């Protein structure tokens, strides 16, 4: 199938984009990497009147260190994140997660910011940036506002990003010494949407976990932070007994909806197994 007809514009600056969004409102959609939007248009599940292509805006690209934090521009491709030595050094969780984002051909085109703004509940980056305590920069006509990732995802495909705002990029605290980050996920085939995934970070001092971050993807409408389990693991040694108890606790924290292939019980089982693996890996890495 082919997309319905639409107007196309390729502005060179964020200000122009904001102007266009203000003028066209809901009839306009922003085109980043197009890996979801174009498929939706080709299936005629959406018929916007105007596509605003932001691929020519240089200021949205690039991965760099800014004021002691790792900055990933909204238009950084998944493959740039995957290949970046800066990401591997300062946010290894993202380097681990990148190969799980669909396939390389899609990663060459799809963007970091596109995935975050779209907020698919099974996407990798939203869960990662919540686990990394990242801060998102959103540009509007009133200026730039900074929203912590943990407050950004509101509901299914619903975020803090207003219809007249543009995501500029993501500011990620760099990896502190003694802290470990692990990302793992389970999918039916490599590159599929995850059934469940875990993004986790923790310090291991004196043989016990501190300051745990444990965020699940594919288990709720938004990245699901297992706060109770995080708190319970504070000061616990990563032995099998603690892991088993953490898993029991997890049953009270998550209540995933079944999907076409996996029941709630299956998802909970897989989440428990995966959390065990991730916590063991964290203990090895830290």
């Amino acid at each position: 199938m082919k997309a319905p007809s639409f107007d196309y514009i390729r502005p060179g600056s964020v200000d122009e984009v904001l102007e266009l969004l203000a003028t066209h409102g809901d009839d306009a959609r922003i085109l980043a990497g197009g890996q979801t939007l174009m498929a939706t248009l080709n299936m005629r599940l959406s018929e916007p009147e105007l596509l605003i292509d932001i691929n020519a805006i240089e200021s949205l690209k690039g991965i760099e260190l800014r004021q002691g934090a790792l900055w990933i521009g909204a238009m950084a491709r998944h493959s740039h994140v995957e290949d970046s030595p800066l990401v591997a050094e300062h946010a290894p969780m993202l380097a681990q997660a990148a190969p799980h984002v669909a396939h390389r051909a899609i990663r060459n085109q799809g963007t970091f910011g596109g995935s975050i703004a779209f907020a698919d509940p099974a996407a990798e980056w939203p869960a990662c940036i919540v686990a990394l305590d990242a801060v998102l920069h959103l540009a509007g006509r009133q200026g730039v506002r900074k929203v912590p990732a943990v407050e950004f995802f509101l509901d299914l495909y619903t975020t803090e990003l207003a219809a007249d705002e543009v995501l500029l990029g993501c500011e990620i605290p760099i990896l502190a010494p003694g802290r470990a980050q692990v990302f793992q996920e389970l999918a039916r085939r490599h590159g599929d949407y995850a059934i469940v995934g875990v993004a986790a970070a923790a310090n291991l001092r004196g043989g016990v976990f501190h300051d745990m971050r444990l965020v699940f993807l594919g288990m709720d409408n938004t990245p699901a932070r297992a706060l109770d389990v995080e708190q319970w693991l504070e000061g616990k040694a990563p032995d099998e007994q603690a892991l088993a108890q953490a898993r029991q606790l997890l049953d009270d924290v998550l209540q995933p909806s079944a999907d076409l292939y996996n029941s709630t019980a299956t998802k909970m089982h897989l989440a428990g197994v995966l959390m065990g693996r991730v916590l063991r890996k964290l203990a090895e890495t830290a």
Partner: protein
Amino acid sequence: MELLGQQLIGANRQTVWNALNDPDVLAQCIPGCEEISRLSENQLQLRIMVKIGPVRSRFAGTLTLEGINAPASCTLVFEGTGAAGFAKGGSSVVLSEQGEQTRLEYAAKASVGGRLGQIGGRLIESSARKMSDEFFSAFQSVLSGGTDAGAEAGTLGGVDAAAVPGARSGGAPPSSGQAAPADAGASAGGPAQKNGAAAGRPASTRPAPAEAAPMLAGWRPELYRAFWFCLGVFFTLLVGRWLP
């Protein structure tokens, strides 16, 4: 998938019953409802713009009331089709008096198919629940006249099947054919399908046409004619675009 739920509404039973049967009220509450009109005493015609994530698609369909036992119970049956697929579902609704308030209980079944079912199947259940949240918070605020009673009742209602262990039979079998119905809540359902947890969220951002409704009342026959004309144009365009 079957969604079960209940909702405590701050109005008496007759008011709630009338509201459920009032196209103007439904038009304000159904997320994305663009057109609603009465075909016969027990049948409504509606057009809905479904906006979930990447999907923005129109559905046209009918909502029929069956097994009417006013003002206590009825069954709502919805069938709709759009460019993106089809949706159908049914829901039994029971209203019971609880002091000054009314308890609304429902059990809904729904399915979607076509392209929407193909690509949307993964998230249909969450989508159905999200739309039901929107419907009930809007229904609540319309009935309570936008007072605090709505917010209070909102926190009480909405026990859906997902939260009740054992209430669900688990995942649906994988769909085999392209257009195999995805077993889930239709995104384009009538009020019957807008069920699930009612979070005490602010009502939908759609401006409530509070003043528009009475003003339009006298013009309704004209509006109906205009609606049917538009529908004719819409289908002509649709057929013109698809058949050649």
